């Protein structure tokens, strides 16, 4: 009797272990199948990309794998960048945002200087540049500058490093040096039409009925309550500017980003702009304080094929330096607005 019970138990154990083993093997093979799934290629004009796509570039599975650089964009030297030094995407090189913009207006540097800076980073016209950084606006700023200069394929990691680590991808801590290039491959800027000067803006505001100067600033900046910056005393907007929304202050872009740091899509942009004083058919020039925040809507529209877009790089910073320029203080949409000149503005509106 005991022998029969023992035999039955043994048979039962064997059957259970065989089935369990098969199930685990199936699960494993399913998981492997998931890893083997090829990440789809993306269009050259596509800007915001996933961590998985970047990983597939690193792994040599994309056409871009042949010639690419990954750049961690933040202001200052690599040694002073905590975002780079605490762990970065394997192979990434630090790029200083100051390499593409500078004084006196914090506008893009001269074409020669930008070209030199790009070559030092190993960036040429046909190099795929993959950017990421802790500051969504700063990263977008570099992406915009490279597009203006003429890089064909510029990508931004959507969601930054958080998205990368959330996807379970590895980081490295060893600092990487750039491999400088010698020839950019075109005359910089290849796309001068992406950049409009303060003179162009004044002319277009007066003469072009389809032109809209779109302020990508917080509402408090737009209606003249504050300049938003400790280094700008005057508050207001260029006369004729319309509000394109932004975030709570110059350093946050809640309207253009999700909580996880990813950028909004074109559909979400259309929803955001459903009650604004311009349409997607207008000739749109974005601006903000000094050109960082305004780069975000530019990139979203760029990747969706819009060509009626540009950046007024000087922003409010450059505008408020000329006492003769016309200004609006308040929101024209509400009717509560005062039109004056820069010279008449008070000097007590700097952010505390």
């Amino acid at each position: 009797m005991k022998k029969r019970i023992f035999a039955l138990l043994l048979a039962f154990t064997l059957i259970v272990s065989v089935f369990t083993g098969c199930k685990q093997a199936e699960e494993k093979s399913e998981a492997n199948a998931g890893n083997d799934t090829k990440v789809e290629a993306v269009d050259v004009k596509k800007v915001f990309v996933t961590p998985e796509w970047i990983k597939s570039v690193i792994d040599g599975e994309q056409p871009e794998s042949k010639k690419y650089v990954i750049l961690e964009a933040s202001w200052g030297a690599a040694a002073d960048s905590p975002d780079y030094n605490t762990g970065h995407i394997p192979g990434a090189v630090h790029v200083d945002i100051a390499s593409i913009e500078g004084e006196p207006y914090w506008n893009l540097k001269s074409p020669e200087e930008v070209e030199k800076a790009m070559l030092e980073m190993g960036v040429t016209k046909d190099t795929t540049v993959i950017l990421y950084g802790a500051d969504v606006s700063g990263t977008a700023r570099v992406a915009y500058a490279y597009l203006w200069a003429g890089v064909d394929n510029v990508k931004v990691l959507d969601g930054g490093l958080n998205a990368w680590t959330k996807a379970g991808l590895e980081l490295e801590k060893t600092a990487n040096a750039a491999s400088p290039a010698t020839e950019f491959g075109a005359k910089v800027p290849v796309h001068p039409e992406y950049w409009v000067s303060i003179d162009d803006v004044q002319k277009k505001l007066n003469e072009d009925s389809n032109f809209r100067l779109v302020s990508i600033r917080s509402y408090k900046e737009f209606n003249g309550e504050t300049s938003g910056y400790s280094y700008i005393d005057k508050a207001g907007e260029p006369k004729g500017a319309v509000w394109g929304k932004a975030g709570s202050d110059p350093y946050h872009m809640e309207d253009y980003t999700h909580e996880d740091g990813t950028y909004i899509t074109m559909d979400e942009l259309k929803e955001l702009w459903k009650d604004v004083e311009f349409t997607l058919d207008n000739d749109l020039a974005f601006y903000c304080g000094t050109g960082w925040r305004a780069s975000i809507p530019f990139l979203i529209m760029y990747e969706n094929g819009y060509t009626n877009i540009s950046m007024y790089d000087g922003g409010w910073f450059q505008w408020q330096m000329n006492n003769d320029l016309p200004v609006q203080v308040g929101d024209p949409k509400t009717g509560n607005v005062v039109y004056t000149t820069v010279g008449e503005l008070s000097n007590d509106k700097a952010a505390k």
Partner: protein
Amino acid sequence: MIRLQNKSGLICMFVCGILEVMAIIGAYAANYFTRTRLGMLRHMVYLNGKWEKMLPIATVKWIALFIVFALVIISCLQYSKRKRRFKADAAVTLLTIAISGWTVYFLLFYNTEMNRAYYILSLCLVLATVLQNALHYCFFSAQSRN
């Protein structure tokens, strides 16, 4: 009475020393954050422009240099007039000369193009130099009453 005066001399030395260290830390912080924080750099550029409009910078610079020279000469004279010299006297005087020399060098050979925090740094260094000279004076005064 003399002991009390010595005590006040010591307190004065201590206060000058603390303030001097704070001024040097302030200079270091201004230099560090101007180099590493974009907002700080832009604020410095803004302050530079504002001060250049408000103040006759060149005149202020030469006045500051004159004050530093005058103070360091007074300190040297104080040391040379001392009949009995101790090692500590020489050490304090040398430190005073070194800090003053450092300030003079910075004021003369740097500018806002080389260092955007030049004005703030100059202010901190001149303050540190004045305090070091005050410390030197207190140190010698306290000793002379012994």
